[in-house]
């Protein structure tokens, strides 16, 4: 028996990204990214701001499951969707989001797959991705690490500005871009390699470098021995259980795998 699940391991890995972010609005889209932001705000970085995903900033995060109403939540200030942009464009935000495609430049796609005029698959639309990417830090969550997500070429629809010299607007440098980390079901990587190349940071317990490379459509820098992704502490597990009383985190990854493959 594993004492933690892969979903919990990934949540903690995402949470860690926010440890030293200071007083930024942490927006986690999707259950595990939101749980990660909530965990960070409840432990390592109480200065974070989070919303109720509706129209208020809260002084403590709402649970990600089992909330009966917004009536008794810890409101701090009104923050309707129009006002969200006042914060976004100030740069004081870090979003944890789950794109459908990510390319070697750290560019992401949530708009559509295939031909743009008549997409094979219409996805969400660009939503706020373009503005987020030019304004503040973004990290990506990928529940199923594969070459369909980590594509060989560019994303079908480039929704975010990434580390791509050919697309860089005049007056900008690559160092102005802030794609922070990518947390997948196999590993954690960033774009801190030479010339902002993707760079492997850690492997989840039992995952090999080969497995990551086989499932990634672009090159990753592998510098020396890659450490193992650190698992959750007992305290983090308890807080995640409090923040997710209905246990929906067990339903986010297919078959809810254990955090340590060798512990099955």
């Amino acid at each position, binding site marked *: 028996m594993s004492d933690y699940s892969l979903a919990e391991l990934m949540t903690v890995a995402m949470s860690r990204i926010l440890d030293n972010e200071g007083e930024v609005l942490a927006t986690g889209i999707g259950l595990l990214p939101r749980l990660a932001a909530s965990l960070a705000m409840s432990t390592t970085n109480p200065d974070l701001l989070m919303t109720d995903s509706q*129209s208020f900033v809260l002084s403590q995060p709402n649970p990600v499951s089992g909330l009966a109403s917004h009536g008794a939540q810890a409101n701090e200030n009104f923050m309707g969707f129009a006002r969200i942009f006042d914060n976004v464009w100030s740069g004081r935000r870090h979003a944890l989001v789950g794109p459908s495609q990510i390319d070697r430049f750290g560019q992401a796609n949530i708009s559509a797959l295939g031909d743009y005029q008549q997409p094979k698959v219409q996805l969400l639309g660009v939503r706020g991705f373009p503005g987020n990417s030019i304004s503040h830090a973004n990290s990506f969550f990928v529940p199923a690490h594969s070459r369909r997500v980590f594509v060989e070429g560019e994303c079908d629809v480039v929704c975010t500005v990434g580390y791509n010299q050919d*697309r860089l607007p005049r007056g900008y440098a690559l160092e102005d871009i802030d794609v922070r980390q990518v947390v997948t079901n196999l590993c954690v990587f960033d774009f801190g390699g030479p010339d902002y190349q993707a760079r492997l940071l850690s492997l989840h317990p039992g995952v090999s470098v080969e497995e990551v490379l086989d499932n990634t459509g672009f090159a990753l820098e592998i510098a020396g021995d890659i450490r193992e992704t650190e698992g959750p502490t007992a305290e983090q597990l308890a807080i995640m259980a409090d923040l997710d009383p209905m246990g929906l985190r067990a339903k986010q990854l297919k078959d809810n795998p254990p955090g340590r493959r060798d512990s099955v």
Partner: protein
Amino acid sequence: MDKTKTLEEAVSAIEDGMTIGIGGWGPRRKPMALVRELIRQGQKDLTVVAYGGADVGMLCAAGQVKKVVFAFVSLDFMPLEPGFRAARQAGAIEVREIDEGMMLLGLRAAAWRLPFIPTAIGLGTDVIRNNPDLALIDSPYDDKQWVAMPALHLDVALVHASIADQRGVCAIQGPDHYMDDLFARAAKQTIVSTDELVNSDVFRDASIARQVLWERNVTDAVVATQAGAHPSSNDPRYGYDVKHFQAYAEAVSAGNFADYRDQVIGANEAQYLANVGGVAAIHQLPLPVY
């Protein structure tokens, strides 16, 4: 001045080929009674600007849309709106896909009678490549490139207010007003539907006057509806109708929007309300929790 109109009268101001802005957000507080009447009247070749939900999807499914200006079209619990998705994947509509914040700026530019508002949003992305008419400009004050987000001029805006009086004073009492004030201000004509027509004295209460986000001289028509946002939510009165959206999605996915139009939307709102189980049942729909 009495601005109240019947649903039929108000919507008949919309003509083929017009640009229509629709307030609300996804499945939240959409002026659906106005949208249903637009489907009954059948105006064609519309350009629709919206933070889209079933308003956009149903108009697409009804074949009335030439172009959609959007950042997303979603029902929240059902991330991809089925009518919009089908129209896109059939290549049946033109699109202008922009960032959520760009839409805000475009509406604000129209409201302020500016030709554009400069922004960094969209730089480096396919929003620029897929919208070749979006101009990149120089700043007189720095050496950076900027996107000139053009004004999104609307012929007509449709919004659903919590309460309104007959002069067009409208209050939004839900958790968020979204960009409804900007839609109203960006339009030549603003049609407001409301589930509660109130006496003007109601607004003497300062806390209610604070919920009025545009002036009455922005509102052209007020339409009294019953559960006029259904199947979207009208928090705090009712939540969005998950079962209804699922049945609509099934009909659209099977290519049977005509059945939904004939059997659910019906010939008028009285029929619609009877078809969906009545106003009392709608008022029991639980408020969404996020």
